[in-house]
C-alpha cells in the first residue's frame, strides 16, 4: 500500500505542474478560442527569467530573499513575452481564418526556443538551476511515504496559484468581465467591456501561472533547458482538454488526472504495456476514452458557442 500512496504523492506533484500550465491554455482558449502552442515556451521562459534573477543577485543572498525575487523575475519575463506575443503575433490575426493563428503559434514556439538556445549564455544544454530548497529534505507522510521539500513547494505554489486565479476570476470586476467575454464577446463589447484588455489579461494571468510552474520545476529538478516547454506544453494542453477547455476547475482537474494516469500507468499498467515508455500512450488513451463519452471534457467547456 505504501507504494500506492507514494505514487499518489508523485502523481499530485506531477499533476500540479500540468494543472498550473493548463490554466494558461484554458483561459486563452476560453476567450479567443486559440490553441496557444507557444504557452509551453512561456513556462520555459519563466524558469530562465528566475535563473537570470538569481544570477543577477549577489552571491550569498539568503534563499528567503532570493526566492521571492526569482519568482518575480520569472513572472516578469513570462508576462512580458506573453504580452508581446499577443500584441504582435496573435492580435493582427483576430479576423483571419481559424487555423492561421495555429501556425503562428507554432512559429512563435520555435522562435522562442531558438532564441533561448542561441542567445541565453550556455543554454544549449541544460543549465543548472540553484536548488535553494534541498531535495534531500524529505517530509515523511507515512512509514514509507515521503515528499521532498521542493515537491511540496511545487504543490503549494500550484494550489496557491489556482486558488488565487479562481478567486480572481469569480470575484474581481476584471474576472467577471473575462467570464462575460468568454460567454459572448460581442455582447461583452456592447456592454462596454474592453475585450482587447481582457484578452491581454488572460494572456498575462496564464503567463504568470506558467512562470510559477517554470520556477518550481527549476527548483525541483535543479535545471532548466530550452526545450522543457514542449513536452509540458503538450501535456498541459491535453489536461486542459481533458477537464473541459475554457473551464478553470477543469484544467486543474485535468492536470491532476493526467498526472495520476501517467504515474499509475508506470506502476500498475499490465505488462508489457507498463513503464515510462507507455505512460504517455495511456494518457492519450484515457483522453480519447473520456472525450468519446464526454465530448466536451470532464467538467464541460465554458466557451462561447460560435457558428
Amino acid at each position, binding site marked *: 500500500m*505504501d*507504494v500506492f500512496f*507514494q*505514487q499518489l504523492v*508523485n*502523481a499530485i*506533484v*506531477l499533476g500540479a505542474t500540468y494543472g498550473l500550465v493548463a490554466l494558461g491554455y484554458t483561459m486563452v482558449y476560453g476567450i479567443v478560442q486559440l490553441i496557444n502552442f507557444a504557452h509551453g515556451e512561456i513556462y520555459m521562459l519563466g524558469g530562465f527569467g528566475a535563473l537570470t534573477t538569481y544570477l543577477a543577485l549577489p552571491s550569498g543572498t539568503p534563499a528567503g530573499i532570493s526566492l521571492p525575487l526569482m519568482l518575480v523575475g520569472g513572472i516578469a519575463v513570462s508576462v512580458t513575452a506573453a504580452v508581446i506575443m499577443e500584441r504582435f503575433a496573435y492580435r493582427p490575426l483576430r479576423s483571419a481564418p481559424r487555423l492561421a493563428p495555429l501556425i503562428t503559434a507554432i512559429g512563435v514556439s520555435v522562435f522562442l526556443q*531558438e532564441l533561448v*538556445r542561441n542567445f541565453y549564455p*550556455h543554454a*544549449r*544544454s*541544460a543549465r*543548472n538551476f540553484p536548488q535553494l530548497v534541498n*531535495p*534531500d529534505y*524529505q517530509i515523511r507522510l507515512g512509514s514509507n511515504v*515521503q515528499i*521532498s521539500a521542493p*515537491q511540496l513547494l511545487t504543490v503549494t505554489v500550484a494550489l496557491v496559484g489556482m486558488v488565487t486565479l479562481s478567486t480572481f476570476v469569480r470575484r474581481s470586476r476584471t474576472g467577471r468581465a473575462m467570464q462575460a467575454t468568454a460567454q459572448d464577446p460581442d455582447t461583452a463589447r456592447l456592454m462596454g467591456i474592453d475585450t482587447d484588455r481582457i484578452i491581454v489579461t488572460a494572456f498575462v494571468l496564464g503567463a504568470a501561472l506558467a512562470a510559477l510552474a517554470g520556477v518550481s*520545476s527549476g527548483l*525541483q*529538478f*535543479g*535545471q532548466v*533547458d530550452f*526545450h*522543457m516547454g*514542449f*513536452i509540458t506544453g503538450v501535456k498541459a494542453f491535453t489536461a486542459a482538454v481533458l477537464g473541459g477547455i475554457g473551464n478553470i476547475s477543469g484544467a486543474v482537474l485535468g492536470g491532476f488526472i493526467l498526472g495520476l494516469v*501517467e*504515474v499509475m500507468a*508506470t*506502476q500498475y499498467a499490465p*505488462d508489457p504495456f507498463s*513503464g*515510462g*515508455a*507507455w*505512460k*504517455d500512450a495511456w494518457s492519450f488513451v484515457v483522453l480519447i476514452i473520456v472525450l468519446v463519452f464526454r465530448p466536451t471534457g470532464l467538467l464541460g467547456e465554458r466557451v462561447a458557442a460560435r457558428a
Partner: protein
Amino acid sequence: MHPPRLVRIAAPLLIGALVLSACGSKKESGGSSGNKTLTIGVVAPLSGDLSAVGNGIKNSVDLAIKQANEKKTVKGYTLTMDAQDDTAKADVGATVAAKLVASSGVVGVVGPLNSSVAKSVAPVMAQADLVEISPSNSNVDLTGRGALVTGGTQVRPYKSYFRVVASDDIQGPFAAQFAVKTVMAKTIAIVHDKKAYGQGLAEAFAKEATKDGATVLKTETINPGDKDFSATITKLKAQKPDFLFYGGEYPEASLLTKQLKSAGLKIPLMGGDGVQSDEYTKIAGAAAEGDYATALGAPTDSLASAKQFVTDYAAAKYADPIGPYGAYAYDAANVIIAALAKSTASGSKSGQALRDDVTKAVQDANYDGITGKITFDQFGDTTVKVLTVYQVKSGKFVAAKTDTFK
C-alpha cells in the same frame, strides 16, 4: 511627389552598404596560396533537443581540421568542414547525405549521432563509396552484427561505414561483468530511455548480468526529455535493488541519479559512454558520487593528447560543451585526415578515385587517437576491445578498471 516607401528604405540601405563596406582594405587575390581544398563533412543534429550533443561532435571535428591545417598534415591541401544538420531525423539524413555526396570536394564524413539516421545516411554514402565514420552509433545492425546475436553470419551492409565506438554487444556485457564480478551487485535494476542506443546497451547488459548470476529486475523505461522520474523510482525502490544500470545519455541520467538518491535509494548508477561526460557530474553534483560509466579504450585522461584536446577545445571557445561523443568525433576526423594524407601523398587524385582511396586507407587505419588505438575490422567495427570503467570520485570520472573484453 513623395518617394515610395521602398525607395525610402532602399536608398539609405544602398548608401549605408557603401559606407560600411568602404572601410576595408584591398584584398590580395588568389586566396590561400594555390592550396587545393578538401572537405570533411559532418552529419549531426545541430538544432533541436539533441543540438548540444550534435554540436559537440561538429566542434570537435572543426578543431581537428583546424589543427591539421596548422600542422599541414595533408600537404598541398587546405581542409574545410561542411557540417549538415540532420535534425535527428532519418529522412533529413538521406537528404544531407545526398548533398555531401554531390559535393565533389567532400572526401569523408563524420557522423551521424543517431543510429536511426545512420541507417538512411549509410546507404547513400556507400553508393558513392564516401567514407563515413560514426562517433556514436552502437546499433548492432549497422555493421551486420545483428546476425551474430541470432546465430547467423555477419554480412557488412554498408561498405564505407565505420565506427569508433563499441557496439552494444560489447560495451553492455563488459559493464555487466564489472557490475556483477567487481561491484558484486546482486539485485540489479535496469532503466533505459527507449532509444536505440540506450535500449541496445541495456538489453546487452541485462543478458550478460543474468548469465553471470545476478538477479535482474524487470526493465523500466523513461522518456528522453522527461524530468520527473519519481514514479519509476518509487516502483524500483519497492523491489530493493542494490545497483542500477541506465542505458541512455547524461541529461536524463544525471537527473535520474539525483532523484534516486533524494528518494533515499542510495545505490550506484552505471551507464555507458553516453553518461561518461563531465556534464553528468556537473549536473548531478554530489548525487553522482560513486556512480559508474564505461567507455571504449584506455582512460583518456591518462593520455597527454586527450588532456590537450580538452584544453584546446576550451581555448577555441565553442558555444557547446564537448559532450559524450566529442572525443570520438575528434578521433574519427583525425582518422579521415590521416587517410587523406596517405591517399594524397602518392600523387594528385581527386573525385571518385580519391574517395575510393580514402575509404581503403580508413579500412587499413592504425591511428593512435585520444580514445586509444583505432583500427577497424572487415565490417567497419572498431577492433579495439579495451574498455574502461570509470567511477565518480570527488565530482570527477576516475578510471576504476581497464580491461580487454572477452
